[in-house]
């Protein structure tokens, strides 16, 4: 493969053999070494072959091999030029994302109670495979949720109106069409609303370790080192997974997959009936995930109130999607175009001035939430103007996996990880110790390196570094 290094953190695969545009990879030599060991680069090249792609097929610093598109891939397509939308470019876990809550508490306030706090959250927030939620939903109510997302949750007593202001899309994608969701997806969605799930999904009680940009940190409500925060990482559960599965089949039936290097790259022109139906169904799944995180955040506040006496000052910093396709305006070759931007394992990183971001953040750029692997740091970045030119306003979404789950579960023991974390003062609770082993920090890339590259390239600006006090895993 013709891979050219442009500068310390930028690489390019020139367009060849069916590629309509080059692929651009943002990685240090070390991260590139990881990517070359799996199929990340070949997958980035495949994305560059899809109709209507604009500028480049972009790869974020935490990228690794996925299915179809790489995880950590960003690509935008022009609907006016036969541009496509692809379920494999969004991922199965539609609107997998991250929510961050700030509190007025400090490490000293929770130190004696972190075990109790985490145990109470573990009781309150259902987690694990096949574990149902606490709500019994009718299909009619579920359809309402699919149409209105976090707005529905707030109206029904889960959280506050201000939370919506500080959620991507204000917690609701207006193009959602619940009628495009199959019965089977609804069936999977009914028992799972308000659940964390399992795998890499987690809920962490964190503290601010370091503030790097005091002015932006203040705007985000992150005031002092030692301040306690809560981070939630989960998505649209089985409902979203089924939507992706359904529309991969629908698009394949309509458009075939014969010419594609990977059947998972199946796509439809955005303006086609199938493209529109998937887009609207995807928006509905996005809304489900927003409602899901909204409910979980509400329960977190309840637990803080029970255990520490008050939920005062527990405000939402932001809620970001990292598996999504959205219609956004971007400048291409001097023209402003409306493009279908796919972010699969990538976080939007819009800089100052973009109308999409909350008014409160319009001068700083949006908060970008990058969770680390279990027991390691997480970061809050601010979006940048440069990112719009570099990656359609996108950056990394986490540490990115390095080692297979199978290998991790052979090498590590969940109990050992739990004890090691305990020695560092971090409490861990999980439904499965084998599941914990699969998520060992060593199975992931170094999040510090991912964030360093992200910052050096200009995809984001570090505002604060967070470290865990307590970890809950499904």
């Amino acid at each position, binding site marked *: 493969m013709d891979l050219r290094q442009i500068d310390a953190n930028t690489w390019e695969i020139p367009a060849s053999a069916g590629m309509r545009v080059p692929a651009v990879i943002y990685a240090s030599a070390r991260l590139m070494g990881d990517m070359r060991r799996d199929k990340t680069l070949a997958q980035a090249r495949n994305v560059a072959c899809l109709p209507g792609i604009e500028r480049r097929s972009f790869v974020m610093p935490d990228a690794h091999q996925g299915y179809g598109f790489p995880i950590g891939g960003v690509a935008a397509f022009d609907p006016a030029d036969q541009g496509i939308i692809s379920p494999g470019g969004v991922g199965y876990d539609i609107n997998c994302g991250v929510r961050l809550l700030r509190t007025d508490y400090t490490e000293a306030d929770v130190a004696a109670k972190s075990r109790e706090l985490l145990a109470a959250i573990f009781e309150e927030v259902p987690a694990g495979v096949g574990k149902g939620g606490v709500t019994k939903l009718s299909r009619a109510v579920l359809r309402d949720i699919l149409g209105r997302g976090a707005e529905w949750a707030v109206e029904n007593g889960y959280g506050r109106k201000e939370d919506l202001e500080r959620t991507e899309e204000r917690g609701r994608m207006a193009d959602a069409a619940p009628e495009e969701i199959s019965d089977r997806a609804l069936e999977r969605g009914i028992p799972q609303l308000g659940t964390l799930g399992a795998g890499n999904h987690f809920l962490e009680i964190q503290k601010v370790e370091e503030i790097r940009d005091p002015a932006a940190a203040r705007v985000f409500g992150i005031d002092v080192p030692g301040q306690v925060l809560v981070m939630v990482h989960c998505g649209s559960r089985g409902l979203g997974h*089924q939507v992706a*599965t359904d529309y991969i089949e629908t698009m394949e039936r309509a458009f075939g997959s014969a010419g594609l290097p*990977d059947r998972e790259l199946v796509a439809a022109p955005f303006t086609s009936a199938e493209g529109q139906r998937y887009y609207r169904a995807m928006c509905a799944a996005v809304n489900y995930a927003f409602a899901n995180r909204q409910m979980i955040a509400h329960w977190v506040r309840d637990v803080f109130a029970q255990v520490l006496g008050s939920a005062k000052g527990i405000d939402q910093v932001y809620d970001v999607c990292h598996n999504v396709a959205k219609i956004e305006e971007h400048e291409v070759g001097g023209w402003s175009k409306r493009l279908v931007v796919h972010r699969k394992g990538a976080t939007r990183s819009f800089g100052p001035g973009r109308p999409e971001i909350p008014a409160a953040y319009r001068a700083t750029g949006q908060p970008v939430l990058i969770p680390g692997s279990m027991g390691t740091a997480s970061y809050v970045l601010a979006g940048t103007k440069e990112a719009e030119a570099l990656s359609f306003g996108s950056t990394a979404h986490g540490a990115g996996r390095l080692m297979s789950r199978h290998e991790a579960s052979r090498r590590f023991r969940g109990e050992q990880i739990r004890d090691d974390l305990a020695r560092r003062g971090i409490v861990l609770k999980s439904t499965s110790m084998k599941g914990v082993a699969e998520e060992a920090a060593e199975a992931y890339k170094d999040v510090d390196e991912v964030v360093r590259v992200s910052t050096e390239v200009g995809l984001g600006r570090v505002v604060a570094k967070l470290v865990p006090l307590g970890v809950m895993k499904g």
Partner: protein
Amino acid sequence: MEKYRILPHTADGKFEAFGGTLEEAFANAALALASLMWDWSRIAPKVEQLVRVEGSDKEQLLVKFLGEIVYLVETRQFLLGQVRKLEIRPHFEGLSLDAVLAGETLGSGHEIYGDVKAVTYHELAIEEGGPGEGSRVQVVVDM
């Protein structure tokens, strides 16, 4: 003969499954999938689930059949322990699959350690051998 083997894949679950016939390889693929989430060998055949799927080709048939295992755990809390019967037949332009699955209901004290989100077409391979040659399938799932 070995039923299946888990293969390395950075993010997701990848496995190959074997069988004397295509049906047997599909049945073993179901056990391989279950092994990514729970220990199927410890699941007693207490309840049965009937599964029927249709596919335009063998690949789609396998993806949809394995999707049933994920669907059943999420909506019926069903943990697969055994594939009792599995038949593949021509169906209109494509194929149909009927299977009888046996297992237990979640909450019976079994550890669920993995979460398979979906079955993908990525690197999906099906090699159907003639009589005496054996069949092999390869699957990547999103976890």
